[in-house]
């Protein structure tokens, strides 16, 4: 199972090809636009119009390739880290204490001595810390 049988094509080469294609298309679109303006200057409106369409569609294509959501650059789906806190309360003196979660903690566990009196503290809640506001 660990011996992967299916090589997955690398993404790096593909992005090079895309970049080269984008540069070529961009150059052609520029030339086309230039010629369109020239034709416009020569008052050949129809020809100018055609060149301009070619030129702008070239730029639109580049823009699309550039701004479309790229799956390759998405955030790497790493296992999330959680900030979990445990709240302990002493039923005798009402002392409340909050600390980081430790393995073995569970809600209603009561074997931790109270730091203020003789009693045992009870874990009353375990939850993740409030999430920070999302950007």
């Amino acid at each position, binding site marked *: *199972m*660990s011996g*992967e049988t*299916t090589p*997955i*094509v690398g*993404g790096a080469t*593909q992005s090079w090809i895309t970049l080269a294609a984008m540069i070529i298309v961009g150059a*052609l679109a520029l*030339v*086309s636009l230039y*010629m369109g303006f*020239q034709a416009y200057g*020569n008052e050949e409106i129809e*020809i100018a119009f*055609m*060149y301009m369409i*070619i030129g702008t*569609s070239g730029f639109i294509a580049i823009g699309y390739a550039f701004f479309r959501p790229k*799956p*390759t650059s*998405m955030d*790497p*789906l*790493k*296992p*999330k*880290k*959680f900030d*979990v806190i445990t709240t302990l309360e002493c039923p005798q003196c009402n002392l409340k204490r909050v600390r980081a*979660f430790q*393995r*073995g*903690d*569970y*809600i*209603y*566990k009561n074997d931790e001595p109270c730091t203020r009196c003789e009693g045992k503290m009870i874990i009353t*809640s*375990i*939850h*993740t*810390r*409030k*999430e920070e506001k999302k950007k």
Partner: protein
Amino acid sequence: MSLLQPDNEIGMILQTLFSFAFIVYLFYAQRIQAMTMLRQIETTLRKIKVLRDEGKTTAIETINEIGKPERDPTPMVERFMEHFMIEPMSMDPAGVVGKLGSILNVREFTFEKEVEVMAPNAEPSERNNIENLLEASLALNIFYKVIRHYYLLGKKTMNIYIIMQIHMILPLILQQIEAYSSALTAFKDGMPIGDGVGAIVAAKLLNGAETREVAKEMVAGEIEYEGRRVIITKARGPGGSVGKPGDAVTNLLNENKGNVTMLITVDAAGKLEGEQVGDIAEGVGAAIGGPGVEKYKIEQAATEHNIPMYAVAIKQGIEHVVAPLVEPLFEATDKAVSSVKGLILDYSKEGDTVVVAGIGNTVGVAQ
């Protein structure tokens, strides 16, 4: 006019290229689309592989840490991750729930045994957690293999419909996979999870009352509330387990034959986009998820004894269900407790007996 001549040559080339691009797009648009989708699937697949491997290593690490096995658990974990279950034939649906139930029992038994062999030195509650951890890794492995299957099949056939099928549900699958990867953290250390809200509500209602075992991995306790006798049942914590709430409720109803006024189930429920995490909703019926066997048993028992079923749902997103419990959900359990108490006051009289079942995985929650 002579200036125009070279311009026209470039113009010709440009025009040809443009027309050519147009024609190419006309015939190959679908293929280009298929390739784009394949690439997106491929990226996702790579991420899922990372998570799947993470699941495996987490499981092995935890077993080594807690179980202190004498030999390397890796081959056993690898074997476990390929475990499968064949669902019973449902062409003739009579009795299919029982068949599914017995298959699930065997599955459970097998998992318990496997974990016992893998981690002989772990305590029972830790064993439950390891079992859950392994199940999460198993789920991640299956996700990975199914998506890989469609990816490779799509690549081989270049059939856009095969590629589309998997591409369409990719965002939903990603959500589930992210959820399972958070489950690894929770089960590794035995933290309460979002699905445990029902168990927490039950534990809060019990409030330290004495409990006894009523069914496999199920405990029940009794409290007095405003003159009513309230019997509360939940899975036995703090190890990760959902228990057999169906059996527990059936046994409790049979014990108090005819004397139960109402049955309340409390469970986590999937929220719709736009609903708040930790919203409480009240309704009727049996609030319980899973393969359906336990739900069937509860409904069967309630119908047999003619007991009305009430339900309290605590809303949460798919990303919360198996992830470490978030604060709004913990706060919601207090609201759910008062909701349950309100239901008891509204629909029962003094001297009545009420059964409350806290459904869900009780990992990290005692009673």
